[in-house]
């Protein structure tokens, strides 16, 4: 067997029900077809999680995967993907995390871990090179995510890289996060709930091996050029100062900042939540992921009611969804709320959205103090925020319906709240209100995991070519939906490209240097398109009625004009949404119900998938 350059060469499979651990050689088909990271996740979840599987049952699988760039000497090869059938959406889901886990996993000898079954009691997965053990951990169960990581580091040693869940994951809140590196989260799609459903509190990894690369001299040359270009970059200092928090002011200025459960997109108090205020008021020190010169991680201090806490953050998404969307008053309040979510193990995007949804329901009288157990759940109240997220993590009171996401909570509470349950496919909308940005709206509608911005972020395209223009927007969204997730396959952060402008050509040169595979960037984009279609096929196989109806935004966005701010009066029409979707489906080679045609799947090397879906009568 030839050496797989850029890869550790082994998939680790752990069955928690039987306690068995096995190793499988990385196959050429897997590597050439799906690259790594999210691609591996999509492949295994499609192939090994049959339709109808309970996302929170032992039949679901969790794939933890690095990519060929992870842990290699190049800028920020730091990304680990977590993939599973999502309990939030019932569809394929994934979320990735920075920090230092991905490289460690490869140094231990594994490109991915497939976790199956369900442990009999609270357990954690211990990996130290070839030594792999499922260890009981009763004493960690119930402990906060940050405290758990610290406890395991104290016990095992600081060189172990640890991913853990908090109480929300244990209780299977559908937007529970996986936490790592004292403050980073794979927050989306409920990957923490999948861990909790398996009685898996944590994964601890230490590796002492190395990763083979095909052309060390070539790699060093490109990496040196990249590091030098970053060091000379005129914007680097701003990134090092403020990280992602710097976007709040801009987002507010263009009418995109989610405010009061997305009723508004302009927050009159945004200055109090700005990156500058984060830096001046609460910042303690900077922190970076593996091999990253940007150091966007910001350790901060927050005080509330006599308690002082330390956390990493808040970055933009948290500031938007917890801050303006719940109308909190200061960056320190946002930071404290951020800490609570991190410790409970809750995604700050969905968590912030769930609380904002509850606040709007409360202010409209859809739920009352009787329902909330006496909580005065009004916008602007940090105390209410804290009490509600505690209820969510514990799944008690109003926290029970909210723990299943805003779509489920709206179904439980009614009163017209479905219209302002801000989600797509069951996943809460991330930090860009898009009534004035049709391509961004389409990006959220069609994002494969639900309403997330990571696959395509195109607001600047809307600003550049016209915020009311519909034609041509779908093509840009599709282009981005192939480029951006490619980074998640390669296991490398995309901030250096998308924020500091490092040309994509560098990454195209890195790929053959690391892997020895003489493939172009365009070749890789075809693989990314294959993965996109495989994920779509998962939904089509899963549900007979899956399709266009799953790609719809909440009614608020096409029935309520923006009330104030720079885009006051604007909204997108139902007809515009249909035009966007028609154009998108046509360009993708899908039918008008949003299902890939057999021809499209076959073109992408997914002939067996096409045959399976044809046999079920799901596609034509």
């Amino acid at each position, binding site marked *: 067997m030839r050496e797989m350059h850029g890869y550790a060469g082994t998939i680790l499979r752990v069955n928690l029900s039987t306690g068995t651990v096995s190793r499988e050689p990385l196959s050429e088909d897997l590597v050439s077809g799906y690259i790594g990271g999210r691609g591996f996740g999509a492949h295994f979840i499609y192939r090994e999680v049959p339709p109808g599987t309970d996302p929170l049952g032992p039949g679901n699988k969790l794939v933890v995967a690095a990519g060929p760039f992870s842990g290699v000497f190049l800028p920020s090869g730091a990304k680990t993907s977590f993939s599973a059938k999502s309990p939030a959406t019932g569809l394929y889901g994934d979320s990735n995390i920075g920090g230092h886990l991905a490289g460690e996993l490869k140094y231990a000898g594994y490109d991915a871990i497939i976790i199956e079954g369900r442990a009999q009691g609270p357990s954690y997965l211990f990996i130290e090179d070839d030594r792999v053990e499922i260890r009981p951990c009763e004493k960690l169960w119930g402990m906060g995510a940050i405290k758990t990581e610290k406890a395991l580091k104290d016990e095992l040693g600081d060189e172990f890289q640890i991913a853990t869940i908090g109480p929300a994951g244990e209780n299977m809140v559908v937007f529970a996060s996986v936490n790592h590196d004292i403050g980073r989260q794979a927050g989306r799609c409920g990957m923490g709930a999948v861990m909790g459903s398996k009685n898996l509190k944590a994964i601890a990894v230490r590796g002492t091996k190395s990763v083979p690369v095909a052309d060390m001299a070539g790699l060093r040359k490109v990496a040196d050029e990249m590091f030098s270009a970053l060091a000379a970059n*005129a914007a680097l200092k*701003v990134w090092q100062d403020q990280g992602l928090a710097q976007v709040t002011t801009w987002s507010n200025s*263009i009418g995109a900042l989610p405010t009061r459960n997305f009723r508004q997109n302009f927050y009159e108090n945004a200055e109090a939540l700005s990156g500058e205020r984060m830096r001046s008021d609460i910042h303690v020190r900077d922190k970076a992921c593996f091999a990253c010169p940007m150091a966007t991680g910001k350790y901060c201090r927050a005080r509330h009611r006599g308690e002082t806490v330390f956390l990493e953050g808040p970055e933009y998404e948290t500031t938007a969804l917890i801050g303006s969307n719940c109308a909190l008053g200061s960056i320190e309040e946002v930071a404290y709320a951020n800490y609570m979510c991190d410790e409970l193990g809750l995604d700050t995007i969905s968590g912030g959205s769930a609380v904002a949804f509850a606040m709007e329901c409360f202010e409209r009288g859809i739920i009352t103090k009787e329902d909330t157990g006496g909580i005065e759940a009004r916008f602007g109240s940090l105390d209410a925020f804290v009490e509600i997220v505690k209820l969510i993590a514990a799944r008690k009171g109003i926290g029970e319906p909210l723990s299943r996401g805003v779509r489920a909570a709206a179904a439980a509470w009614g009163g017209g709240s479905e219209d302002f349950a801000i989600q797509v496919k069951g996943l809460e909308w991330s930090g860009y209100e898009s009534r004035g940005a049709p391509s961004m709206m389409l990006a959220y509608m069609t994002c494969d995991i639900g309403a997330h911005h990571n696959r395509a972020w195109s*607001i600047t*395209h809307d600003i*550049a070519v016209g915020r009311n223009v519909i034609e041509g927007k779908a093509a840009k969204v599709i282009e981005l939906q192939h480029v951006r997730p490619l980074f998640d396959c390669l296991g490398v952060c995309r901030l250096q490209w998308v*924020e*500091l402008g490092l040309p994509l050509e560098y990454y195209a040169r890195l790929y053959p240097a690391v892997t020895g595979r003489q493939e172009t960037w365009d070749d890789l984009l075809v693989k990314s398109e294959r993965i996109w279609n495989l994920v779509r096929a998962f939904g089509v196989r899963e549900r007979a009625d899956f399709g266009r109806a799953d790609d719809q935004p909440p009614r608020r966005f096409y029935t309520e004009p923006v009330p104030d701010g720079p885009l006051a009066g604007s909204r997108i029409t139902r007809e515009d949404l249909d035009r966007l979707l028609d154009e998108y489906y046509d360009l993708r080679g899908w039918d008008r119900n949003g299902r890939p045609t057999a021809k499209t799947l076959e073109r992408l090397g997914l002939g067996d998938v096409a045959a399976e879906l044809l046999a079920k009568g799901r596609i034509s």
Partner: protein
Amino acid sequence: MTMKVTVEISRVLAAIRPGLAERAELDLPEGATVGDALAAAGLVQGLWGIVVVGGKVADVSTKLSPGDKVTVFPPVSGG
């Protein structure tokens, strides 16, 4: 009197609209500001995030001098 100013737009930002040049050599009136230079380069408000002139972060009201290079980065895209 006019002065020569260079505007450099990061590649990822230039790619968002056909015809947006990565580098523009501009003749601007004396006393022109960063905002004037960005407008002359075809950038409408909201398109830029960080703007750097002479190694320092600038804003639209920053006055330019002859020979200045204005480097423009996109707004944060959230990773």
